[in-house]
């Protein structure tokens, strides 16, 4: 018992400069971002990003910290959002300050989660995944049946500006909404982080890793899961409220499997093992989505391929890959890695570009309107009927692949060296 107390005091060990620093930096970043990226579209993207971050962090409370794979997490965000939009349409909205609205969404997300969690958290793993899928599909299908609440096919829309002015701010412009969203992002991220530090958050990890042992310690693994589930529902509801404020409309799309699946994708891409993983995932995914969808029609093919590759080769996600570099940096040996990285990754990127070039040309040749043979790729305009683009891309892919493969052992060796402390490798 004594050792347990000890670890707890160590965990709760107060606020030090080191633990507070990331939060202060992110707060300052959030305040400064609109001054760096001033265009309207940039602010729209940042709003979207912030909402995705809250949602992804709440999803990771289940997947990463609790070991529960959910295929229906969009439902809690959606229901929270729908409640908020309905409140926007009521007369009472005039006496509620808008910044408090997401809290309401959170409460309703939490209520729904506490109902569903009652029977779905009995088991983790496959059963939980299946129930979450069933409940998700059920509620998504209900959205066309219960028209009073979900608004049928066209959804429910509202107007955020009818709310009570908040210190004179009426949230007419995107930038005001950005600061509201950013504020909620910071609060909820901090709360979720603190939750993961509480004994119940720690127990969630224990139950994820070994439910049997946790039961022997006297904890009901079901209730531990239930608590995480309800908390995740709350933060998903907050994300829903933010969504309602930002877009002022919610539809069936906010509830269905596509949304639930894409948040799984975002979270896993970022990395489920680290707290800030989903943040990285949300930022990268939103950027990928905006940039790629402008450039190519088949961007979701690339995202799908990236996702499968992540699961197969980097199951710890982007944040995990970043974390892998802490040891070489601490050992002061990261310089060993620079050259091998360049000679391996540059050909690999060339190979991927060549492959995607081939895919694009093939797609254009198959699906473009008849007679339209001209296409622009990588700032070069050419006809897909010509032979040289095919040859160039094929050569790029083959050469890049060959070089990357040739240099990979060098990278492996350097990686091994950089991760071994001096003296250990004699």
């Amino acid at each position, binding site marked *: 018992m004594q050792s347990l107390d000890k670890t707890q005091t160590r965990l709760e060990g107060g606020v030090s400069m080191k633990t507070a620093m990331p939060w202060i930096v992110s707060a300052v970043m959030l305040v400064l971002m609109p001054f760096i990226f001033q265009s309207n579209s940039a602010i729209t993207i940042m709003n979207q990003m912030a909402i995705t971050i809250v949602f992804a962090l709440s999803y990771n409370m289940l997947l990463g910290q609790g070991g529960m794979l959910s295929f229906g997490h969009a439902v809690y965000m959606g229901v929270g959002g729908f409640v908020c939009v309905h409140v926007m349409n009521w007369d009472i909205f005039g006496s509620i300050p808008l910044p408090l609205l997401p809290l309401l969404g959170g409460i309703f997300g939490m209520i729904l989660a506490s109902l569903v969690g009652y029977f779905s958290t009995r088991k983790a793993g*496959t*059963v939980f995944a*299946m*129930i979450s899928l069933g409940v998700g599909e059920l509620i998504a*299908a209900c959205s066309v049946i*219960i*028209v009073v609440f979900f608004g049928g096919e066209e959804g429910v829309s509202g107007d955020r500006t009818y709310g009570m002015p908040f210190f004179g701010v009426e949230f007419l412009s995107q930038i005001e909404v950005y600061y509201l969203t950013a504020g909620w992002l910071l609060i909820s991220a901090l709360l979720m982080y603190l939750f993961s530090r509480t004994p119940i958050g720690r127990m969630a990890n224990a139950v994820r890793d070994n439910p049997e042992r946790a039961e022997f310690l006297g904890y009901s693994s079901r209730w531990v899961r239930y608590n995480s589930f309800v908390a995740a529902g709350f933060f998903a509801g907050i994300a829903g409220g933010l969504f309602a404020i930002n877009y002022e409309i919610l539809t069936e799309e906010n509830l269905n499997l596509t949304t639930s699946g894409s948040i799984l994708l975002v979270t896993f891409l970022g990395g489920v093992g680290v707290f800030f993983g989903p943040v990285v995932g949300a930022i990268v995914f939103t950027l990928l989505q905006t940039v790629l969808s402008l450039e190519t029609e088949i961007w979701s093919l690339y995202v799908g391929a990236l996702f499968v590759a992540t699961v197969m080769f980097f*199951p710890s996600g982007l944040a995990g890959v970043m974390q892998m570099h802490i040891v070489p940096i601490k050992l002061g040996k990261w310089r060993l890695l620079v050259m091998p990285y360049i000679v391996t990754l540059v050909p690999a990127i060339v190979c991927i570009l060549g492959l995607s070039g081939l895919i694009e040309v093939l797609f254009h040749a*198959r699906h473009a309107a008849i007679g339209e043979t001209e296409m622009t790729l990588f700032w070069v305009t050419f006809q897909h009927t010509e032979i040289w683009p095919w040859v160039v891309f094929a050569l790029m892919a083959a050469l890049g692949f060959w070089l990357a493969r040739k240099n990979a052992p060098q990278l492996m060796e350097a990686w091994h060296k950089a991760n071994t402390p001096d003296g250990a490798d004699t």
Partner: protein
Amino acid sequence: MDLILVNLIDGLVTGLLLFMLSAGLTLIFSMMGVLNFAHASFYMLGAYFAYQISTYLGFWMGLLIAPPLVGIVGAAVERYGLRRVHQYGHVPELIFTFGLALLIEELVKFIWGNDQIPYQIPEILEGAAFSISSYDIPAYKVFMIFLSLGIFAGLLFVMTRTRVGMIIQAALSYPRTVEALGHNVPLVFMGVFGVGTALAGVAGVIAGPVLSTFPGMAFVLGSIVFVTIVIGGLGSLGGALVAALIIGWLTTFAKAYNIRMEDILTSLGFTKPEPVWDSAWADLWTLTSPQIADILPYLLMILILVFRPYGLFGKRDV
């Protein structure tokens, strides 16, 4: 009475189709403990492959060639994808198959486009086989019933009467022992995965022309297949059959008979609010059974999981 018979046949077709998909899925699950989220994607691949072959060689060659092709793709996925992810545990496996489902859908869109493709039933099976009073039963439905029944008879024979079936059954329960006896268990796993996906491919080949072949077809059927094997009990072939038939008949009958909530509520003594669309209970009053037919399986699954978490015939805890 006649209408009931017609609906029974319709439900049987849906149920057998569902069973063909869920049989492979539940077999794969009981062997490797992984739920293959991409199973319905192989069903879609079956339909698309068969369409592509049928444009050159006709429908029958498509039926013959497409399922083995799907099986080969499935076996390759097991060998080079799933086996690699297996070391990380069950949840990453599930996530992998989910990503695979996304990827296959995108690939299908990439190759065949976003629109429905004109995959037709063969001329010889057009028209009615027989009629029950005034209702015609299409010949193609009869063909579907007999083909799926034939496949199950074959599957049952292989699983219970042949040496290969014995090894598979043994590998299901005691993989280590079977391996110690000198059998190549990873190869058996790969084979079962291939056969399971090939079965899904057959379902795709015969369902493609009637349920229409488009990139979303895997998505439409995918979650229902899961529901089927969860209701039947994970890993139980018999349970999958019962659950598939229940779901087939349930949805068919709910769609065929327009049971209205209004009638039920009135007979219970409630009075209908006028005008109904202003009432807060409008959705409840206007509810009809065809409307909720598609969510009945999900409802059933949740009820089953709450009251009998093992499913109808499941023996083991999942």
